[in-house]
Structures are given as C-alpha cells and as structure tokens.
C-alpha cells in the first residue's frame, strides 16, 4: 500500500504541475517572446522549444527531486492509510496522459520509418562516408530530412534536375542544420508532451527553426541568394505534400516562404549565428546558483512538499 500511495501521490503532483504549467505556457508564451525579444532566429526557436517543454521538464524535476524523496523519507512506512480518491484519480489521469503521449510518439516514429524505407528504395547515397547520408531518390518529397536516431537527407530526382550545384549545396546545408539542431527529436518530444492549445506555439517554433536553419546554411550574400533560388524552385515543383511527422522539408508553408525569401534577400552577417560559447557565460552561473539554492533549502522544501501531499491525500 505504501508503494501504491507513493506512486499515486507522485503522479498526482506531476499531473497537477504539468497541467498548470502547460496552461500558463499555452496562454503566456507570446508575452514571454515579446519581453525576451530574441535577436536571432535560432535563439527564438530555442526559447519556443524551452517554453514548450518547460512544463514536462519542471513537473518531472519537481516530482523526482521533491515529491518522491519527501514521501519516501517523511511518510511513515507502516501507516495504514488508503491511497485516497484524489491521488488515485489524478494518478490514473497521469498514466493515461503518458500512454497517449507514447502512442502518438511511437505512431510518428513508425510512420516515419515506413516512409524512409519507401524513399530508400531505388535511392543512392550521394556522398559515401558522410556523417549524415544524403540520398538521391525518385520516391521522396523534393528535399527533406527524416529520422531521429539515424537521420538522412533525401533529395528527389526532380530537385536534382531543377537546382544548380551551388543551390543544391546550400539547400542540403539547410537540411543538415536541422539534424545538428535535433529538430526531428524535438518534434518527437512535442508529440509525447500532449496538451491542448499548443498548436500556435509549435507552428511559431517551426517557422523559427526554418529561419534558424536558413541562417546556419548561408555565410555570404551569394549563398543567401542561392538558398532563396532553391526555395523558389522547390516550391514551383509543388512540394507541400504531406510528410511523416518526423521529417522536415525545405518548405514549411507558403506563408513562411515569402517571409524567408525576403529575409534571405536582406541577408546581413547579423543573421549569422554566433559561437554558442557566449551562452555558457550566463547559463553556467545561473545553473550553479539554482543548484546552491536547492541545496540550501532542500530540507525545508521537502517538509513543505510533504505537507502538500498530505493535504492532497486527505
């Protein structure tokens, strides 16, 4: 009974926190972006991803660091208490949420694997020994990167024929940037972390991540114009066909297309992502400060958390 109560209470706290934080994020993400004002598309995409995943990460962190230890250390093991209807209901809701998330993630992974297998038929790897294989194939959408564990870039025969070598190189670099940023893995996590009302945030993330990949793919005005030309040519090929969930094509949507092309026309070095080492200047001290704060207040926090879970069980 102790173990059942421990699991029930932990899951209940998790689901309550997850729901409250998700609601706050789905309502307030625009405000955070407005206040934060990320300068680069990459920072914007990172911020949006952070906001989208924050409820899951914070709820899991609080459950593992506070709820579970407080119950294990402060709850008398031999107390003959029932699990309580609130923790039981919330615990079941949490398990259902996990199950639904798992089903969505596994389905996406399965569909993507099936599509990749189809695209690989009759395909040939263009550059042997490359870390991420670039596959030329008659079956794939025009230009897309698919897969989470072993990602591949697929280029259709039509795209090969339409693009000049310089345009193709820049477009492939764009797709490889999605691999470096783990964008398909992030999409998988979005599918797992279910919560209604996150569609706008995810769409905004998709647009920001496309622009971040554009920035990473070009390092001169000439390359920016090559990528713009590739975008126009690929959209003329009519490539907004549906792709599996864990694949990202060169084109996100026609609305974003004109914004991206106009951005590339105005390309300046300011769009180029700077070395990431600068971010450590802020994140390391902030992380250290959080660890020290948690260490200093840990016992008091456990007592408070236990009082909260007692209230929940009652």
């Amino acid at each position, binding site marked *: 009974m102790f173990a059942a109560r421990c699991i029930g209470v932990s899951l209940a706290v998790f689901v309550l926190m997850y729901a409250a934080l998700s609601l706050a994020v789905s309502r307030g993400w625009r405000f955070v972006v407005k206040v934060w004002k990320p300068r680069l598309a990459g920072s914007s995409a990172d911020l949006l991803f952070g906001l989208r995943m924050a409820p899951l990460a914070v709820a899991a962190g609080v459950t593992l660091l506070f709820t579970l230890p407080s119950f294990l250390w402060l709850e008398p093991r031999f107390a003959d208490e029932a699990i309580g209807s609130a923790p039981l209901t919330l615990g079941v809701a949490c398990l259902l949420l996990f199950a639904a998330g798992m089903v969505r993630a596994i389905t996406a992974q399965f569909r993507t694997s099936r599509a990749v297998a189809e695209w690989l038929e009759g395909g040939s790897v263009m550059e042997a020994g490359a870390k991420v294989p670039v596959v030329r194939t008659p079956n794939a959408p025009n230009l897309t990167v698919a897969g989470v564990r072993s990602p591949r870039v697929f280029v259709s025969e039509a795209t090969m024929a339409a693009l000049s070598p310089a345009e193709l190189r820049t477009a492939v670099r764009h797709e490889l940037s999605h691999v470096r940023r783990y964008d398909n893995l992030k999409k998988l996590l979005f599918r797992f972390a279910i919560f209604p009302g996150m569609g706008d945030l995810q769409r905004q993330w998709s647009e920001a991540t496309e622009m971040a990949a554009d920035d990473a793919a070009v390092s001169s005005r000439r390359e920016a114009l090559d990528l713009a030309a590739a975008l126009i040519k690929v959209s003329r090929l009519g490539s907004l066909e549906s792709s599996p969930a864990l694949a990202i094509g060169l084109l996100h949507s026609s609305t974003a297309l*004109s914004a991206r092309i106009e951005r590339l*026309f105005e390309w300046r070095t300011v769009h180029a992502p700077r070395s990431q080492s600068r971010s450590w200047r802020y994140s390391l001290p902030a992380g250290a400060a959080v660890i020290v704060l948690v260490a200093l207040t840990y016992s008091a926090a456990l007592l408070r958390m236990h009082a909260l879970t007692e209230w929940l069980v009652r």
Partner: protein
Amino acid sequence: MKKVFGLLRPSPATRLGPLEFELLQSLWARGSATVRELLADGSIALAYTTVMTTLDRLYKKQLLDRVSEGRAFRYSPRHTRQELEKAAAGETIRQLLDSGTTASLPLSYLVEAVSEHDARLLDELQRLLDEKRRELREQEEQ
C-alpha cells in the same frame, strides 16, 4: 480578440476608414506615439483634433492601447499587423466557406485562388531574385 474580428471584415484596410488605417500604420511603424508626435514629421496633413478623434475611435474599437502622458495620451497598437491580417483572413475564409450551397464549391474557389496567388507570388519573388543577383554581380565587378 473576437470583437476585433467583426471590425475587420473583409479586411482591415476596407473595414477601417482610410484615415484610421493610415494612423494605425503609423503606429505600427513607430510602436507608440502621441498625437503631437504623429503630426510632427509632417507626413500626416490633418488637424490635431481630427487625429485625436480618430485615435480615440480606434481606442474604443479596442485596436489601440493608451496611457496618459501629461495632458495627452500615448497610443500604441494592441495587435500586431500580422495578428490583424490573420484575423481578417480567417474571417473572410469563414464567410466564403459559409456562403456556398455546395460545401466543396467555395473550397475549390479558394484552392484555385491560392494556386494563382502562389504562382504570382513565386513570379514576383523570382523577379526580385534576378534583380538581387544582378546587383551582387555588379558589386563584385566594381
């Protein structure tokens, strides 16, 4: 926001008066401004009271926010241009979809219009691209 949708039919440019739209555009460009600031650069050739009354009307339509600044108000747009256009487009499409007797007919008009628009957009983007490439070549040759 729902109240705003009604004001935008069929588009912000046509539903709002030309003066209202002009002032809204100025505020989008500036972020925020007082009546005096809007008139200062000379691009709006109107009387102070006309601009003041129009801004007040936009505020009452919930399209502007305002804070008092001395004896005047500082106005700022409540929604971005993109948000307003998105709302207007959504409303127009909803109206179009509701208008047909056969459910699929308005949708087919829409697909046709979007395809035509996309083709025109791509032509325009291609023209701009050719221009930019020519500029770049000239710069490199100099």
